């Protein structure tokens, strides 16, 4: 037990400490200001990111304006016959196509995994499998890129790309050869799909797990079997969240740098074939910004970053709204 403090003799004058306590609500007001400042700093960080890429791209924005987005030529090297000129369409096209391939492959698969983990999996397996999925989502992307370069691309070239290009590709220009190294949109899209699969699966599982049991019980009481319960009750109830999960996966694929850089071949020419090398916004920046030729080149690359930031910002906004909607305001509340 602590010793009882000696009682101060009564005095009409307030001590400095008492005054301080009274004015600051015993230190709570400075505390509030302190944590508020740090919270505002996070808003500041986002603002700073946006501001820096906006200001840094001023030169390119002034020169090209919005036609930058549709410009098809990215030529940073000025020669006697061609001036240096910058257009972001090859990068935007590569980003969208590789992410689209990734989402088309990983979306359905990821949702099925989410369904299995939250609805069908034996209880004993649920925790270890969920943990494994989370662990896989934490593996750095450069590891997937490494595996893609060393193992996947040679296999992809010999057993997938070459046969397809030689058979179907003779008629379909978007599957045509030549398959040089195997690196290109398709290879990058497939490895991106592997990368975003754990993300989509983990978030779908979380979303499905918060669907109330009453939703399942109602349909079961009507005589539905397990799959009908999932298909007609659980999935519709969680559909907003599942769309959000797929969009978050899409966001990850859009912004992914390393795996794309290592696998897409980094060519700024636009070619029709999915097996041909291409580039993405992120890999273009990673490749060229460290050794930009001049201020305009640097500014154009920052402009590409601004475009990428805009796309992912929009996507995240929509995805978060959807996930938030399913966790707050259910569609069919009982």
């Amino acid at each position: 037990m602590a010793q009882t403090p000696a009682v101060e003799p009564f005095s009409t004058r307030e001590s400095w400490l008492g005054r301080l306590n009274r004015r600051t609500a015993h230190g709570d007001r400075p505390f509030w200001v302190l944590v508020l400042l740090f919270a505002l700093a996070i808003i500041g960080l986002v603002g700073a990111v946006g501001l820096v890429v906006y200001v840094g791209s001023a030169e390119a924005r002034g020169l090209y304006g919005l036609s930058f987005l549709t410009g098809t030529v990215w030529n940073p090297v000025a020669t006697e016959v061609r001036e240096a000129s910058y257009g972001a369409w090859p990068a935007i096209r590569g980003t969208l196509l590789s992410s689209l391939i990734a989402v088309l492959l990983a979306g359905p698969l990821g949702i099925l995994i989410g369904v299995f983990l939250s609805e069908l999996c034996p209880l004993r397996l649920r925790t270890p499998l969920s943990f494994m999925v989370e662990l896989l989502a934490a593996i750095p992307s450069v590891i997937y890129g490494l595996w893609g370069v060393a193992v996947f691309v040679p296999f992809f070239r010999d057993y997938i790309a070459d046969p397809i290009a030689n058979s179907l590709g003779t008629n379909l220009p978007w599957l045509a050869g030549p398959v040089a190294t195997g690196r290109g949109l398709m290879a990058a899209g497939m490895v991106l799909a592997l990368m975003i699969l754990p993300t989509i699966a983990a978030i779908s599982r979380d979303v499905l797990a918060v669907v109330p049991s009453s939703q399942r019980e109602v349909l079961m009481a009507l005589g539905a079997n397990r799959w009908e319960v999932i298909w007609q009750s659980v999935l519709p109830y969680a559909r907003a969240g599942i769309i959000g999960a797929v969009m978050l996966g899409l966001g990850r694929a859009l912004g992914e740098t390393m795996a794309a850089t290592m696998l897409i071949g980094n060519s700024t020419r636009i070619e029709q074939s999915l097996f041909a090398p291409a580039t993405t916004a992120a890999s273009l920046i990673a490749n060229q910004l460290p050794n930009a030729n001049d201020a305009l080149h640097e500014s154009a690359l920052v402009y590409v970053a601004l475009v990428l930031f805009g796309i992912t910002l929009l996507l995240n906004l929509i995805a978060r709204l959807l996930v938030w909607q399913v966790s707050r305001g259910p569609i069919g509340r009982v």
Partner: protein
Amino acid sequence: MSIRASAPRNYAWRRFVGRLMQTLTIVATTLAIVPLLLIIGYVLYRGGASLTPGFFTTDYLPPALGGGIEFTDPTVPAPIGEQPFNPDDPFAGVGIDSLPGTGLENETIPGTAADGASDPAAQPRPPEGDLTQITAQGGVRHGIVGTLLVTIFALLLAIPLGLLAGIFLAEYRDNSVATVVRFCCDVLSGAPSIIVGVVAFVLIVAPTQTYSGWAGSVALAVLMVPTITRATEEMLKLVPDSTREGAMALGAPTWWSTFTVVVPTALVGIVTGVLLAFARGAGETAPLLLTIQGSNKLSFDMNEPIAALPLMIYKYIESPFPSENDLAWGAAFVLTVLVLIVNILARALTRRRTR
């Protein structure tokens, strides 16, 4: 909820569809988890194979210098191993022994004998001439040191910011500022890491005219802040209000009860968040490419380019020399094991807490 108006044809059909789809989910799960586990297994297997005895204690060794020559002579001008490696240059690292006028011709043989005895990694002298035959040599000490330095300084920057912002979100919950801050956290954690790299490049690297470890730390810190903030917020929200009320009843002001009662109660969870942020930061590659550039030598100076494990993987896997490819696999091994251990540790911490 509306139930589909058209009734399924019959029971056998319904049972068939149900069985089919259930099987499909199992197939999908197997199809996804098995290859992903194979990737990790292959990285561990291939990386483990390239671990040499001196793997953790030596730095980068160019293929031409398999004899373990150490450049201790300060008069030697910029050894080739310390120049930025260019994978497109087939002569990178070749021929230091034969360069006239560097004074190395005489030191080669004694240096090999003296250092070879103390350094087991340097023992096997590779066959003369054929650089494409030399396998695993050198080590990743510089990469480990660089990654730890950059990531730990990033944590030191990110922890105060994330912790205090998280306290704000948890203790002053429902106000418009908190909503905006939460949204900004989501934006930051969803933004491509390369964009944070671009910002650090424009703000720090371009004005100072040099790549530096500090620029990398700042970029990683920005990427870590949202993880730490949200973890802190979630964990503090789990602390029951009766705990806060108990402290209040004893006369403690909010700040005192926050730091002495609420935060310690949730400490394990917060530490978990910090560990996950560390793991994420250690694996980030794209922002480091634009900020610290990578280096082949051991350096503790945060004001100059510094090495990092992810950058080593990225650079050396494209190298024509098997010895450098082995180094990439070895670095991948170290990075994967680091990330897995940190994640499992974080998991173990939370499990103990919830019991």
